[in-house]
């Protein structure tokens, strides 16, 4: 037993320790509240409106029963597809550059620019796509939306691809080079192929993020009441439809917004979970 004043001090210190531990633990619980709330409310409010026709039908005017968001679902997939056409080669190529040649000054500069670009607000990217595509073409179009989404995709994709390629063990690369395989073939056939699982993860994450974007589509792909698969025409998207339904004054549209949000959330979560699963498998193999 120590003397009285020290022991008092000790108790006080232990009390502070306990309080801070409890406060920090409480922070974890507080952080989980909004997550549970969002998931539960989207699920409980959205599930009633789901039906086969919700996925396949066109939207109906206010007051008319039935109708769905079929064109929005197709439109979102179409826009994301367009974005992938432009964004995947550039993003993955840049990632490969950063991993293979990115150790010098220029590599650092490219990496820094990619990191900073990934923080540019999506609405700003929307304006950029407006200036690049909509103004010269004089019309809102799916192409403009695709360009906006691809600009959002590239920086993140480049950085994740780099990390995935860097995970490939050096020994593999050295073995190929020692066998006399040229560098470019080593990069493409050995390194890139080994990192393929990780890159698929990166792609899925990019797709899931692009599918959830609304702001850059508001004045690029705009919206459309009908089906559209032409790149030079305005196109509906799930997210813009949710936005329009949510801010409308109609009960019926609010219900549709919840159901559409449920569809979107399921899609985003599914791609996220699949990519996570792939990444976990990969890491276990690497260990």
């Amino acid at each position, binding site marked *: 037993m120590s003397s009285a004043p020290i022991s008092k001090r000790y108790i006080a210190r232990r009390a*502070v*320790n306990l309080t801070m*531990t409890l406060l920090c633990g*409480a*922070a*974890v619980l507080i*952080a*989980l509240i*909004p*997550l549970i*709330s*969002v998931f539960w*409310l*989207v699920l409980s409010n959205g599930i009633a409106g789901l039906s086969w026709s919700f996925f396949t039908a066109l939207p109906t005017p206010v007051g008319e029963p039935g109708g769905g968001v079929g064109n929005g679902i197709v439109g979102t997939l179409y826009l994301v597809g367009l974005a992938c056409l432009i964004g995947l080669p*550039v993003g993955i190529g*840049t990632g*490969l*550059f950063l991993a*293979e*040649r990115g150790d010098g000054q220029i590599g650092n*500069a490219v990496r*820094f*620019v990619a990191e*900073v*670009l990934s*923080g*540019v*607000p999506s*609405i*700003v*990217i*929307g*304006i*950029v796509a407006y*200036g690049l595509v909509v*103004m010269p073409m004089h019309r809102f179009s799916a192409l403009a939306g695709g360009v906006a989404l691809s*600009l959002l995709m*590239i*920086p993140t994709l480049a950085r994740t691809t780099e*990390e995935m390629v860097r995970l490939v063990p050096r020994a593999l690369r*050295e073995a190929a080079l*020692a066998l*006399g395989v040229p560098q*470019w073939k080593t990069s493409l056939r050995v390194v890139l192929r080994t990192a393929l699982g990780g890159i698929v993860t990166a792609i899925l994450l990019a797709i899931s993020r692009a*599918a*959830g974007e*609304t*702001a850059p589509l*508001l*004045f690029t792909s705009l919206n459309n009441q009908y089906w559209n698969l032409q790149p030079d025409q305005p196109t509906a998207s799930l997210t813009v439809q*949710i*936005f329009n339904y*949510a*801010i409308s004054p109609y009960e019926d549209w609010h219900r549709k917004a*919840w159901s559409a*949000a449920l569809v*979107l*959330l399921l899609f985003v*979560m599914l791609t*996220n979970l699949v990519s996570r699963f792939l990444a976990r498998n990969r890491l276990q193999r690497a260990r």
Partner: protein
Amino acid sequence: MLPEAEIRLGRERPRPRRLLQRVNIGDTSFNALLWIFAGAVLLIAGVIVFSLWATARPAFKAVSIPSFIAGQNWDPVQESFGALPFIFGTLVTSGIALVVTVPVAVGLAIFLVEMAPSRLRPVVSFPLELLAAIPSVVYGLWGIFVLVPWLRDSTEPLLSVTLGFLPLFRGPPLGFGYLAGGLILSVMILPTIASVSIEVLKAAPESLREAALALGATRWEAVRVAVIPYSRAGIVGAILLGLGRALGETMAVTMVIGNSPEIHASLFAPGYSLPAVIANEFAEATSSMHTAALAALALILFGITLLLNSVARLLIRAVARGPARVAA
């Protein structure tokens, strides 16, 4: 392991000429391709700046930059453009978000890295990733139908009764307003700040903790005297990264902030933010000057976030090498 340079050196021994040529063509073109991709990212950065500038330029020709930024009147029909209400709304909502989120996010990170058993880490980081993956329009929907009614019916009346002596908490409880915008932002930037803080704290050397604990410090004291001073710059970087997200977040704020281009002292009052006004007015801009003025707002937003992000990345880079840079 053999350094790559030596392997490359080894290949330059004299060989039959044709083979050497073939190898070189493949390598040269592959190299060139990689450099083109690297150039593409730099090009994209340049195009973003140029396109914004070109779209916004007519506005800066018509209105001087100081009067644009400090002007309080926004009336597109009269071609009067003052950005102050939007800048004010953006700063107020982001400020609320930081005040609410920073203690929670940093506390969560400290708990997971320093206090909880390490088995708990994946259990919590998974929900954090889910929180980050929810699209912002879904947050907005949740904001309109859950957060706003909750604020209007219980929280705002309560605040005005208890803290009503402050001008911040006066006025009719509308629900839609600065407070709703700030709170929804705080939910959205939580995963960013928390996950980067976790990486930063993990990067603090184990020996620091051990030294503090060996001197008889409690867990919390070890965190306070050994870990936090080491990680401070990185945590500030995480917060700045979160702030950058908050400033540019569009849909969720647009849906709950009330969309009224005025400046109020009360947090309950409806306001407007830079991204929100762009989202609402750009597609239906009444004149080319209106379009340019909105693009000028985007340029301001771009400048602020660019600055914040650069500082944040440099701070985080200085503290945590590796995964922290990807975590966000």
